[in-house]
């Protein structure tokens, strides 16, 4: 019983411990980033599956690179009805072209915006990265306001492990691309680590 207060403090300290506490800042590695940095994603249709707090939604998702270098992300259901159409331009410009009333909530749009910014690799386009090592992985980070976007490679820079959004202390979003990776990932698996939400995208091979 007399150990309870110190145990509690230990648990609280562990709860407060940063997910990024093991990162050690090191110098840049342009040879690695030139080879592996995810800078864009090719225009593709994806079969999309979204699970949010027990609710399941499926449909088709178009990621389109526009001639003016902006990006559009359109989500429709299988029957063809459009749920949302978002536009991403340079310098963080974001435009909602279309959204159905059921999804037209500030928090929903903000969450989807952040998710797709990472899927589209927008934070990494300026090619200015802070580099950190942690165990067998190397983190390349771009700070954006209160959060940092990371792409994480193997120690030898042979493979891209995942993308992440994180605050100073917590991992928020993780993206893996099993199969072929960027710029034409076959599969994109996005997981929110602070609440129950997953997006799974599987590239559609058009005839």
């Amino acid at each position: 019983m007399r150990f309870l207060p110190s145990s509690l403090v230990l648990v609280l300290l562990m709860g407060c411990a940063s997910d990024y506490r093991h990162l050690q800042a090191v110098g840049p590695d342009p040879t690695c980033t030139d080879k592996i940095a995810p800078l864009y994603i090719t225009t593709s249709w994806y079969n999309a599956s979204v699970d949010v707090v027990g609710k399941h939604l499926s449909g088709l998702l178009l990621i389109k690179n526009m001639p003016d270098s902006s990006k559009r992300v359109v989500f429709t259901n299988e029957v063809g009805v459009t749920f949302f159409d978002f536009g991403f331009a340079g310098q963080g410009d974001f435009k909602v072209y279309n959204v159905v009333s059921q999804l037209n909530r500030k928090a929903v749009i903000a969450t989807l915006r952040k998710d797709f910014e990472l899927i589209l690799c927008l934070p990494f386009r300026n090619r200015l990265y802070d580099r950190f090592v942690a165990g067998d992985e190397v983190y390349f980070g771009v700070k954006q306001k209160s959060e940092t976007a990371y792409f994480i490679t193997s120690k030898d820079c042979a493979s891209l492990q995942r993308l992440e959004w994180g605050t100073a202390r917590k991992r928020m979003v993780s993206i893996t691309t099993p199969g072929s990776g960027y710029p034409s990932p076959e599969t994109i698996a996005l997981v929110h680590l602070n609440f129950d939400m997953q997006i799974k995208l599987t590239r559609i091979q058009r005839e």
Partner: protein
Amino acid sequence: MVDRFSPCVLRIVRFILLITFIGFGDPAIAQYTGYSAVADVPSFRKRFNEESLKIESISSNFTQEKILSALTEKITSSGKFSFKRSNKVRIEYLKPFVYLMVLNGDKMLIRDEQKESRINVKANRLFQQVNRIMVDCVQGTILDSKDFSSKVFEDRNTYLLEMTPASKTLREFFQTIVLVVDKKDYSAISIVMNEPAGDKTTITFTDKKLNLQLSDAVFAL
């Protein structure tokens, strides 16, 4: 000078008014090349209901083309469609993705590549309306639907029914739904869903077989 040309100007004005009143000014007709308005809609409605009642089942393939006009993008999918009177519809997408939707009365089954869900459409007004549209389109009762105001046109071989949603809920998804019906047997040839933002989805039915014996198991939930 003005007086000298007045009769000519008046003739031009009369001509413009004339073509406006005989229909060239109707944007709907202008949109449907080769079609003219059906004069006696009540009688068409009666005939449509009577003839559609003769269709007990439909089994066909379909091709669906979704066009995103602003993005100059389209995606084409295809699959199998089945209908059995009354209130049973099965839409199975096979390429380039797998997706199954079965409507059976007030119940709906949806199976995508990840999950299977059963929905009571009565509990969801939007599902209920979409369910109703599909069933009404294929069993010939769409003109009786209170969800739409309708215009009817015809050419030599087909009738074209343009339906404009009445409710705000449906207007959010569809500007119009256009159903093209074969004059031979009053079965649906195509359904076009025009969205408010200018995108459209066209479902075209092919290899259609009417009144085959379709087992209820096809529509099992």
